[in-house]
C-alpha cells in the first residue's frame, strides 16, 4: 500500500498547513489541534498538581499556618475545577480528536473547523479561570458551587461568576468536540467497518460523545441560571422568593454524574485497545464490552441523586438511587472480567502501556468498592463530606481514568512522534506514580472513617489525624515526582528516542497502518476492513480503495450501520474564522459576567465571524429561486 512519491507530493500540497504562525492559527488538522489540547491539559494538570501538593503540605502538620482558610478554599476549588473541567474531560475529547480519524483510516474529522473552534474556546475557558486566579479573583466554593452560598448574597464579587462562566466555555467546547466525534464515527467509517466490526475504542468515544451531548445542556443551563440570579437578580435559587436551591443540585448532578463516566468511558476505550494489542489476541467478549459500556452510559443518567443523599430527599427516592448506583457495578464488573479474561488467555507482553493497565485494574477496583459503599444511602450519611469521599473519587478518577490515560500516552506516543519512549524510565515513572498514589490516598479512607472532614484547612493535634496525613503527603510527593519523571521521559524521548517505525507494538487497529508520525493526510488510500482487528489479518496487504480526490480536500462518507460508501464530501480548508469566532464568543462570555447587555451586543461580532466562517465557496446556482440573476 506504499503510495508512489508523486501521489504523496500531491497529497502534501493539498493537505499541508501553511508554514509559520499563520499555519498555526488557521490549521484544521485534527492531529495538530488534538496535540494542542493534550499539551494544554497536561500543563494544567501540572499546575493543579502543584496546588494539590501545596494543600498536602498544609495538612501534613496539625494547625499548620502555611495556608489560611481562604487560601485553602481557593486551592481546592481551583484544583478540583481545573482537574475536572479543564483536564479530564478535554483530554479525553482530545484523544478522540487525535485518534478517531486515524482509526477510521480517514483524512480528517467530519467538521474540521469545528475542531479548531473547540480548542480555541477551551483555551478561552482556561485563560478565564487562570488569569482570574492571577488577579486574585479565584473561585473559592469548591468544584460544584451550590447556592445560596454561591448566590449574590453570600458570594459578592465575581469569584463565583468566573467559575460559572468557565463552565460555559468548556461546555460549549465539549459540545463542539462531541458532535464532531459522533458524526465522524457514525458517518466516516471505512468500507467494511460495519457497526459490528467497530473497535471498542470507537464505541467508547462514540458513547462518551453522545453522553456529553445529552448531559452538558443541563450544566450550561444551571450555571447560566446562577449567573442570572447574580447579575440580573432572578430568583431561581432563592427559596424565600419561590425559588429552589435543590434545583441547582439536581441540574448540576444530572450532568455531574454522567461527567465521571464521560471521563471513564474513553478510558475503557484506551484499556481495550492496549489489552488487545499486548495480550496478542482479539478482545475476549467484544460484544459484552460494548454492551457494558452502553449499559453504564444509560444507567449513568439515572443515579445522580446519590450525590444528594444528605440533603433530605424522600426515603424511597434515596433507596431507588442506592439500587441504581449499585447496579452500575454489574456492567463495570463485566468489563473488568472481559479484560482479565483477555489477558489470561493471551500471550501478555508487559511493556509500559500494559503496566499501566495492570495499575489501572488494581486501583480502579478499590475505587469501585468504595463507590459501592458510598452508594448506600445510609452509609453515605456517615461518609459524605469526609476524607473517605476524597479517597474514593481520587481512586476512580486517577486510578480509573488517569492511569489508562498515561498508558494510552505511552502506547500512542510512537505513533505521534515516530519515536519510542524509554522503557526503563517508563517503569520508574509507573512505579513512583502508582506506588505513591496508593500510599498517598489509601490512608485517606481511614482518615475519613476517623471523621476527618473534607475541605478543612487544618485540624487540632488532639484529633490524632496527623501521622496518617503525613503518610498521605509523602505519597503525594512520590506520585508527583513520578509525574516529573514521566514528563521528562516524554520530552527526552521526543528528541532522543529510538525510531519506532509505523507499528512498534504490532497493534490491531488501523492507526498502525499509516506512517509515524502520520502525514497531514493520514492515509494515501481508503482502507477496506473485514474484521475487528484489521491489522492482524494480513498487515502487509490491507485492501485499499482509490477514488478520493488527491488534488482537493475530500473525504469519504459512508452509511451509519453498514459503512457502505455513500458519497465524497468536501472537507473544509484551513481558516482563521474558527479562531475569530472563538474570540468573539469569549469576549461575549466574559463581558456577560458584568452586564447582561453583553449578550445582545456580543451577538453582532459572533454573527459576523460565523458569516465569514460559512461564506460559500461554491459558485452561485444557475437555477432555482436563489439563482444568480444578471
Amino acid at each position: 500500500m506504499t503510495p508512489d512519491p508523486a501521489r504523496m507530493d500531491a497529497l502534501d500540497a493539498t493537505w499541508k498547513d501553511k508554514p509559520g504562525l499563520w499555519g498555526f492559527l488557521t490549521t484544521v488538522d485534527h492531529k495538530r489541534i488534538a496535540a494542542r489540547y493534550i499539551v494544554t491539559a497536561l500543563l494544567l494538570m501540572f499546575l493543579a498538581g502543584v496546588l494539590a501538593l501545596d494543600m498536602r503540605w498544609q495538612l501534613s502538620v496539625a494547625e499548620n499556618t502555611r495556608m489560611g482558610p481562604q487560601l485553602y478554599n481557593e486551592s481546592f476549588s481551583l484544583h478540583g475545577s481545573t482537574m475536572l473541567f479543564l483536564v479530564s474531560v478535554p483530554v479525553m475529547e482530545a484523544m478522540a480528536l487525535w485518534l478517531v480519524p486515524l482509526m477510521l483510516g480517514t483524512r480528517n474529522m467530519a467538521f474540521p473547523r469545528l475542531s479548531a473552534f473547540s480548542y480555541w474556546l477551551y483555551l478561552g475557558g482556561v485563560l478565564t479561570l487562570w488569569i482570574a486566579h492571577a488577579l486574585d479573583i479565584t473561585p473559592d466554593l469548591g468544584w460544584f458551587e451550590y447556592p445560596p452560598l454561591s448566590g449574590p448574597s453570600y458570594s459578592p464579587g465575581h469569584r463565583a461568576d468566573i467559575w460559572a462562566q468557565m463552565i460555559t466555555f468548556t461546555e460549549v467546547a465539549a459540545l463542539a468536540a462531541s458532535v464532531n466525534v459522533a458524526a465522524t464515527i457514525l458517518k466516516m467509517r471505512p468500507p467494511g467497518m460495519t457497526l459490528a466490526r467497530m473497535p471498542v475504542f470507537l464505541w467508547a468515544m462514540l458513547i462518551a460523545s453522545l453522553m456529553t451531548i445529552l448531559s452538558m445542556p443541563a450544566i450550561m443551563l444551571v450555571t447560566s441560571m446562577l449567573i442570572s440570579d447574580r447579575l440580573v437578580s432572578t430568583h431561581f435559587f432563592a427559596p424565600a422568593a419561590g425559588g429552589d436551591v435543590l434545583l441547582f443540585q439536581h441540574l448540576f448532578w444530572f450532568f455531574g454524574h454522567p461527567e465521571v463516566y464521560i471521563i471513564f468511558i474513553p478510558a475503557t476505550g484506551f484499556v481495550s485497545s492496549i489489552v488487545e494489542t499486548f495480550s496478542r489476541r482479539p478482545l475476549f467478549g467484544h460484544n459484552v464490552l460494548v454492551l457494558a459500556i452502553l449499559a453504564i452510559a444509560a444507567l449513568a443518567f439515572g443515579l445522580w441523586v446519590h450525590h444528594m443523599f444528605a440533603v433530605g430527599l424522600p426515603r424511597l427516592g434515596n433507596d431507588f438511587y442506592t439500587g441504581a448506583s449499585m447496579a452500575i457495578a454489574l456492567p463495570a464488573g463485566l468489563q473488568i472480567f472481559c479484560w482479565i479474561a483477555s489477558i489470561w488467555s493471551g500471550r501478555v507482553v508487559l511493556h509500559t502501556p500494559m503496566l499501566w493497565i495492570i495499575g489501572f485494574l488494581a486501583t480502579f477496583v478499590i475505587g469501585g468498592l468504595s463507590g459501592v459503599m458510598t452508594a448506600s444511602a445510609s452509609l453515605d450519611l456517615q461518609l459524605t463530606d469526609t476524607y473517605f469521599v476524597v479517597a474514593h473519587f481520587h481512586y476512580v478518577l486517577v486510578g480509573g481514568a488517569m492511569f489508562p490515560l498515561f498508558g494510552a500516552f505511552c502506547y500512542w506516543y510512537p505513533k505521534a512522534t515516530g519515536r519510542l519512549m524509554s522503557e526503563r524510565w517508563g517503569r520508574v515513572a509507573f512505579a513512583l506514580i502508582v506506588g505513591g498514589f496508593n500510599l498517598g490516598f489509601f490512608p485517606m479512607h481511614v482518615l475519613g472513617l476517623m471523621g476527618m472532614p473534607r475541605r478543612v484547612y487544618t485540624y487540632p493535634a488532639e484529633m490524632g489525624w496527623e501521622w496518617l496525613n503525613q503518610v498521605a503527603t509523602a505519597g503525594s510527593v512520590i506520585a508527583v515526582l513520578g509525574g516529573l519523571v514521566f514528563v521528562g521521559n516524554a520530552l527526552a524521548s521526543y528528541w532522543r528516542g529510538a525510531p519506532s517505525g509505523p507499528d512498534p507494538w504490532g497493534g490491531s487497529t488501523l492507526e498502525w497502518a499509516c506512517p509515524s508520525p502520520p502525514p497531514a493526510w493520514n492515509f494515501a488510500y481508503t482502507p477496506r476492513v473485514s474484521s475487528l482487528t484489521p491489522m492482524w489479518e494480513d498487515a502487509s496487504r490491507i485492501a485499499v480503495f482509490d477514488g478520493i480526490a488527491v488534488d482537493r480536500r475530500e473525504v469519504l462518507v459512508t452509511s451509519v450501520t453498514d459503512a457502505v460508501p455513500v458519497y465524497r464530501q468536501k472537507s473544509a480548508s484551513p481558516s482563521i474564522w474558527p479562531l475569530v469566532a472563538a474570540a468573539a464568543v469569549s469576549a461575549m462570555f466574559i463581558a456577560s459576567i458584568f452586564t447582561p447587555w453583553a449578550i445582545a451586543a456580543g451577538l453582532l461580532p459572533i454573527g459576523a465571524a460565523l458569516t465569514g466562517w460559512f461564506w460559500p465557496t461554491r459558485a452561485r446556482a444557475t437555477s432555482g429561486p436563489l439563482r444568480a440573476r444578471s
Partner: protein
Amino acid sequence: MKPGGILVLLAACLAACSNEARTIGPAMPQTLPSGDADPRIGAYQENAYQVSQGRRYFAWYGCSQCHAEGGPADRDLTDGKWRHGGGFAQVYASVASGHPEQDFVRRIAIEQLWQITAYVRDLPTHTAEKRYRLLVDQKGEAQGSSWNGPQ
C-alpha cells in the same frame, strides 16, 4: 512595549484594586474613622466582601426593621439623600450615635460598624431589584427580633 509586558502591567493594575480581596477574621480598624478621608475607608467601601458583611449585620442588628425600602423618606436609606451628610465618617456617626435608644456604639463592634457603614453607603448604587434579591437570600437568617439567642 511587547504585548506580554502590557498584559503583565494590566494584570498588576487590576490586582491593585482589591475589590475582590477577602480576609477572614478581624482586619484593621479598631478605631473610629478619623474623617471622610481616612485612608482605611477604601478597603471597606470598595470591597465586595466587606460590604456584604455589612448587609448581614444590618439585618442581624435589626436595622432593616425600621429602614425598610420605600418606607418613610427620613428612614429610606436607598434614595441617596443623606440628611446628616453622606461622607463615610458622617454616615458612621449617624449609625453609631444617631440611635441613642439602641446604644449601637456599645453593642456593635467597631469593625462591624465600618462594614455596616460601607453597606449603607453602597445601597443607592444598586437597583431596587438587586437590593431585594440580596436581602431575600438572607431571609433564613435570624434577624432583629427573630433572633432568640445563641443556639
